[in-house]
């Protein structure tokens, strides 16, 4: 079964066509990257897959469930990490994880989920400090922990390393890879082509709301005789 099945997806905001007939699919157990410049439509697609936005036309299915008609079922299978997301500033990291974990189980199950979240976030003793005292990197690690602690069938990560330094970015990439080994599927977006090359088994290049190319990074580099994905993207768009 496909983890994500997007067909002829169109999303309009008034007169603006944010997504223009995009189609792609993500297989179970893979890391799939959406790559494109700002305002290409990446976040809109991720928000639609995450049941946050309605669609103008086309269809989107997550593990066989329609994101519009079966939104509540889809929400039980996914975990979404928005770009620049925050956490409740007056809660401690631990209490924040507990708050989220309670939606996924009671008692012992909640405890296990929180422990997993704390392990992924790896904030040490700072987990008991208020979120308002965290650095940007610490908040992002907490949020990645939050997103992956529930062991979602599909993790949707929008710019997972956005604004982080090299060390933090590397750690988060490792965390993402580990989660896939545990059985998750990851759909992510990124500007960072190096990150995408390192992480993704397959990618889709998106420009002006359209998927302009799709495949695994190695094949695409070969096809366009490019040294890296940046060159691939430039050649495809031009």
């Amino acid at each position, binding site marked *: 079964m496909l983890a994500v099945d997007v067909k002829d997806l169109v999303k309009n*905001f008034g007169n603006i066509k944010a997504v223009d007939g995009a189609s792609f699919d993500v297989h179970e157990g893979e890391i799939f990257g959406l790559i494109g410049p700002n305002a290409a439509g990446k976040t809109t697609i991720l*928000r639609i897959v995450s049941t*946050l*936005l309605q669609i103008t036309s086309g269809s989107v299915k997550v593990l066989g469930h329609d994101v519009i008609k079966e939104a509540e079922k889809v929400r039980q299978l*996914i*975990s979404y990490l*928005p770009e620049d997301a925050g956490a*409740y500033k007056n809660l401690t990291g631990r209490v924040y994880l507990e708050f989220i974990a309670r*939606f996924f189980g009671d008692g012992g199950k909640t405890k296990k989920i929180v422990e997993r979240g704390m392990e992924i976030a790896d904030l040490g003793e700072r987990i008991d400090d208020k979120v308002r005292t965290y650095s940007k990197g610490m908040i992002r690690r907490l949020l990645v922990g939050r997103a992956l602690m529930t062991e979602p069938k599909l993790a949707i990560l929008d710019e997972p390393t956005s604004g982080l330094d090299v060390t933090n970015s590397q750690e988060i990439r490792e965390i993402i890879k580990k989660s896939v080994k545990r059985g998750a599927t990851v759909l992510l977006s990124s500007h960072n082509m190096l990150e995408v090359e390192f992480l993704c088994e397959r990618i889709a290049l998106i420009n002006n709301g359209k998927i302009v190319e799709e495949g695994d990074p190695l094949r695409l580099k070969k096809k366009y005789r490019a040294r890296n994905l940046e060159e691939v993207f430039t050649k495809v768009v031009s």
Partner: protein
Amino acid sequence: MSDLGNIVKKEVREMLTPTTIVPVILVAFLFGAMGNMIGGVTEEAKKKPTIGIIDEDNSFLSAIVTGVLREQANVVYSSTNGADVSEGLQKVEEEGGAALLVIPLDFSENIYENHPGEIHIRWIMNGMGTMDLVPTQVVNVLIQVINQEISKKLVEENSPVNPDVVINPIAKSETTIFKGKEMVGLSPEVISGALSSQSITIPIIMMMIITMAGSMVISSMGMEKENKTLETLLTLPVKRNYIVIGKIAGSAIVGLLMAVIYMVGFGYYMQSFQISGVNLADFGLTLGLQDYFLVGLSVFATLFAGLSLCMVLGTFAKDYKSAQTLILPVTLLAMISMFVIMFKDFGTLPPVLKVIMFLIPFSHPMMAMRALMFDDYLLVLGGIVYVVIFAAITIAVVAWIFKTDRLLTERTKMRKGGAKFLRGLFGRFGR
């Protein structure tokens, strides 16, 4: 443009936004409305009060009384027969009058025998607002004028009357009829003073609860957007209705807690003004268990309706700052209800204002306690039914907004006209 001019232009542009202008306009509007009301009180005071007179005494001194009254008041009923009280009251009531004054047979005799002459006043009280009491106050001023005129006459006559009686030749015995209840020995001012908690304290406390709890809801939405936590919340496996109701309930608890703290302080403050010492229970003005239940229900339903309205407004908040502005329409509505109830009773309002007051959900708990004291169950029950319907519709609107893109994109699928209307109404508030 000079550098200085450039900086000034930038500063003005930054500061002169709808977020800064709208509150000022709303406050100006509120002051204007208050000015109109106060102007209304002044106008009311200038009007001749409508009264009835029964002069059983028919003497030289009672002629002074009736003379002053005929000159200074609009006398709609006049008789010399003490048996005509019921007829007189009916006539005065029909004409929307304030009182029936009865000058008893022994009026002059008492004065000349060194006892103040008693005038029996049957007050017809229409409401307990400040403006409702104006005709009563005007009649009381006329009694003082009469007192002086009789005093003068006694001095001119070199009457051998006791000086104390010469200075104060008149005494009043008062009975007030209000909403079918006859309260012997009480004047409208005393009743109004004793019920001031219903007239002033409850509306103020209700306004505080609505404003505080409402502010919590709207700020919570603003903070969710500012801290970018809303998107996460909306993708969790939890029903959207639970998010809506959870936010409303949480804010209601915090708002109520804060209001209780204020209420304790404000209660003590208001007690210091209560000097009447009248036990309202002696006149049947008490609330039973079912009345308190109805008041509680009215408060709860209104709080829920108000907070649902705030949730609708909260969806327009872009951040914490814009959320603070969005509470203003709710505060304004609550303040309108509060001021109108302080100035006028629901029953004495002009029809248009009655409709407006009924439509503002916040009016109902403000009026409930007073209405129940006078057994006006129709108004209270009707109000509760209306507020529950209002809350249900508003929650349905919020639930609908939560299912659209509105929360994240500030856009909703809507027909052109509707979208334009809503943008005009709220859209700019949040900017």
